[in-house]
């Protein structure tokens, strides 16, 4: 009878003694996921993204054995993939082909990963951009998001863009921009082009350089204000004169491409109007409207004397068409009104008015592409007109500030926030 007692005691002692492992913290799974393809690339809608899209997934705790099941899913843009699912190879790679869709500018491909037991691991997105046709594509990329000026030549098929400190040339696609480098292009500020295709660049240090071969080479012009180390406001009038404005100096013009400069007389009334637009009319007179209010003046002696022309409202911009009809943009109470004058400014009649969200300086207000004018009214949006007599609302976007058109006819609208542009490719190119 002693043995059973001892057996019970031994059994109870054994089961009451449990060996526990020491406290420990360890990573039992440690996966890394990524697409080999660079995110944020730009393509045309319907393009293939690179030659292929390659996804990488590996468990660093067990890199040789732990394959991962990957499910590719297009979650935005409406594109398609050729390999919708599969397992990563020994190197942790799985490739597919991704054709972008046309449903949205931003397009996403998602790789949903599972371990070999079918447990969900995570989802990894690859975002690319597909530029569409006849839609506005909103871009916050660099450098185009901060562009401030543009020149385009439809004949020579090139476009240059500036973003305050660097000049870029439009690349193989209208959304691709390649920097233009030249020792003379030091801190470029503005970019303009005359009717002969000569490109002028003013700098933040008050220099003026020009290119006569579409921006391939550059030469220095005579500094319009030699004693002034700061930037100035240049303007190219339709007679290819180069005008230079600086608030503390007389207005200057150069009729030989910036090599020599002529001062307008001191006390000239147009100086008070600030920098602005200058037109040479067919009778040889000059028409000037500064950036400030109500500064339309005409000179019949090449700028020595000026005659003020009264304008309706709070005029801030003028445009002269081939028929020398004046189109004046004026601010009214809460509105912007476009006026027309067919008698050189003696009378103006209103054509169209809008109510902008805000008012500011007018820049590239009147832009022509093909048979149409596109008129940007900051704080309102873009109007479209075949003849500037009738208008239609082309795009209401209260955040717009400026508008450019490249040599392909792609509209590039600029947001006031300085980091957003809107591309619209109407040509389909």
């Amino acid at each position, binding site marked *: 009878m002693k043995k059973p007692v001892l057996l019970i*005691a031994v059994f109870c002692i054994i089961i009451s003694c449990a060996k526990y492992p020491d406290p420990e*913290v360890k990573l039992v799974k440690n996966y890394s996921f990524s697409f080999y393809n660079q995110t944020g690339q730009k393509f045309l809608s319907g393009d293939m993204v690179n030659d292929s899209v390659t996804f990488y997934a590996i468990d660093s705790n067990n890199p040789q054995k732990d394959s991962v099941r990957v499910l590719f899913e297009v979650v935005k843009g409406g594109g398609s993939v050729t390999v919708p699912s599969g397992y990563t190879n020994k190197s942790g790679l799985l490739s597919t082909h991704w054709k972008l869709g046309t449903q949205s500018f931003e397009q996403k491909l998602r790789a949903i990963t599972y371990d070999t037991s079918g447990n969900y691991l995570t989802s990894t997105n690859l975002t690319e951009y597909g530029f569409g046709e006849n839609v506005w594509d909103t871009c916050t990329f660099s450098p185009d998001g901060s562009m401030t000026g543009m020149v385009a030549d439809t004949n020579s098929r090139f476009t240059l863009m500036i973003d305050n400190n660097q000049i870029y040339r439009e690349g193989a696609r209208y959304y691709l921009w390649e920097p233009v480098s030249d020792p003379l292009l030091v801190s470029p500020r503005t970019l303009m082009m005359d009717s002969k295709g000569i490109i002028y660049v003013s700098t933040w240090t008050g220099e003026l350089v020009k290119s006569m071969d579409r921006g391939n080479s550059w030469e220095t012009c005579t500094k319009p204000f030699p004693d002034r180390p700061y930037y100035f406001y240049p303007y190219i009038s339709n007679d290819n004169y180069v005008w230079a404005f600086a608030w503390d100096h007389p207005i200057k013009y150069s009729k030989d491409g910036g090599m020599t400069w002529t001062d307008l007389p001191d006390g000239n009334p147009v100086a008070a109007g600030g920098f602005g637009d200058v037109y040479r009319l067919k009778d040889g007179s000059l028409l000037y409207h500064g950036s400030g209010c109500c500064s339309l003046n005409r000179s019949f002696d090449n700028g020595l004397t000026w005659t003020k022309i009264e304008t309706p409202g709070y005029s801030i911009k003028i445009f002269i068409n081939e028929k020398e009809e004046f189109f004046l943009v004026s601010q009214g109470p809460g509105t912007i009104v476009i006026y027309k004058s067919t008698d050189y400014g003696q009378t103006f009649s209103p054509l169209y008015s809008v109510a902008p969200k805000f008012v500011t300086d007018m820049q590239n207000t009147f832009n022509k592409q093909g048979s149409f004018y596109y008129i940007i009214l900051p704080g309102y949006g873009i109007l479209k007109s075949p003849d500037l007599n009738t208008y239609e609302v082309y795009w209401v976007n209260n955040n717009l500030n400026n508008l450019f058109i490249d040599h392909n006819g792609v509209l590039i609208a600029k947001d006031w926030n300085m980091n957003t542009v809107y591309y619209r490719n109407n040509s389909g190119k």
Partner: protein
Amino acid sequence: MKKYNAIISFVLIIFCYSVGYSQKITTGIYSGVNFSDIQGQDFGGKWESKPGPVQGIYLNWSLGRSFGLQTGLGFSTVYYEHRTTYNPVFYITPSYYNDMMPVYYQTIDKMDFSFMRLPLLLTVSIPSSIQFNMKAGVVFSFLTDHSLGSYYNYSYSVADNIKKNDFGYLFSSGISYPLGDRFRATLNVSYLTGRKKFMDYSNMKHGSSEYTLGIEYEFLKKNKTLKNQNQESDSASKRVTITYYGGLNVSWNPQRVDGKKYLPLAGPALGFSVNIPLSHGSSFISRVSFVRRGYSMKDSSSFFYRYLKDDKPVYAVNTKVQADYAIIPILINIPLGKSQKLYFNTGPWLGLRLNARNTGVAYNVNHSESSYTMQETIIYDDIEKFIKANDVGWAFGCGVSVPVVKNYKVDISLQYSISFKDDFNSSAEGYMQNNSDPGSVIRFRTISLLLGIKIP
């Protein structure tokens, strides 16, 4: 004052009880091993139970047929070893292992203490061929030597803060086997728990279990006395029986938190009971059971040892909370039927928590677009500070007692017990509680299936 009056009264009763019986003095030597079981802790981690030597001599003064007093001189060395994985700078609680992810150190810190001990114990013996005895009393310990691990030395600046003496309780039970007229071999299992915090700024108290073998010698005993005692022993066996038993108990905590429930935990039960017959076949049962109670968790939680009302549980836990108790019930046993093989018993019990721990594993998953990590935390935390030191409740039981050989019986019983007290010590959590968390309540329910041998 009531306590002292009770002790004095009890001693007088023992003396009066002993008057009518022969008295004997027994001495013995013993040697064995102790296994450290530190009491209280300052933070989580695992206290490894380490063996150490124990030896001593004792002198027992028998005050009668069953009762006696014992004292002696003991020597022991207790080795403590603490293992954890934590960031030593930011470590707060076990649940914050993951939040302090950046740096982990696997630390093992050791310390040991050597004592000279003077026990004063009341002994109870049940005479039979294999004599069973129980002892309980106080122990005065005097520190003779010690060494500390670097962490404790550094953290507590304890060079001069170690307490030089200790006062504690000792519980023991064992058997002795006759080797001749005067010699007996002894086997004892003891549990010793200190009552004083042994270093300043710390909650730790000494604790250990001891397993000893010894030789006992009886003197001042005449042959006549021995003969009479054996006769009395046979007579006594008709009235008092001992049941050694072991088995399995399943315990659980019925509380729910946010719809999450605590799952049952199975654990061992081991002990003995003394059955003192009363009239009409009924009997009075006193018992000492060593049982493991607790619960398990298999859900999401921010803590390892309880569910927290938390919108963002950090872990998927698969853990157990195990608390070892010495349960001392006082039961009235009533036989059922004519054969009196079936019985029913019920009565109150007192539970003394010996230790408590939190074990298991927890997983924490973090994923982003570029990564997925699963962190496994192997958990072993001593959590005695979260479990109250004692418990009271009521037990119900039934069973069958079947004679097998001679007067031996096999006893199969089923016990159900409930706790009256909330065993969770919420004050130990302190600042860890948040406003939305209702806290925790632990009221153990236990069902035990026991198989025993009833020895006359």
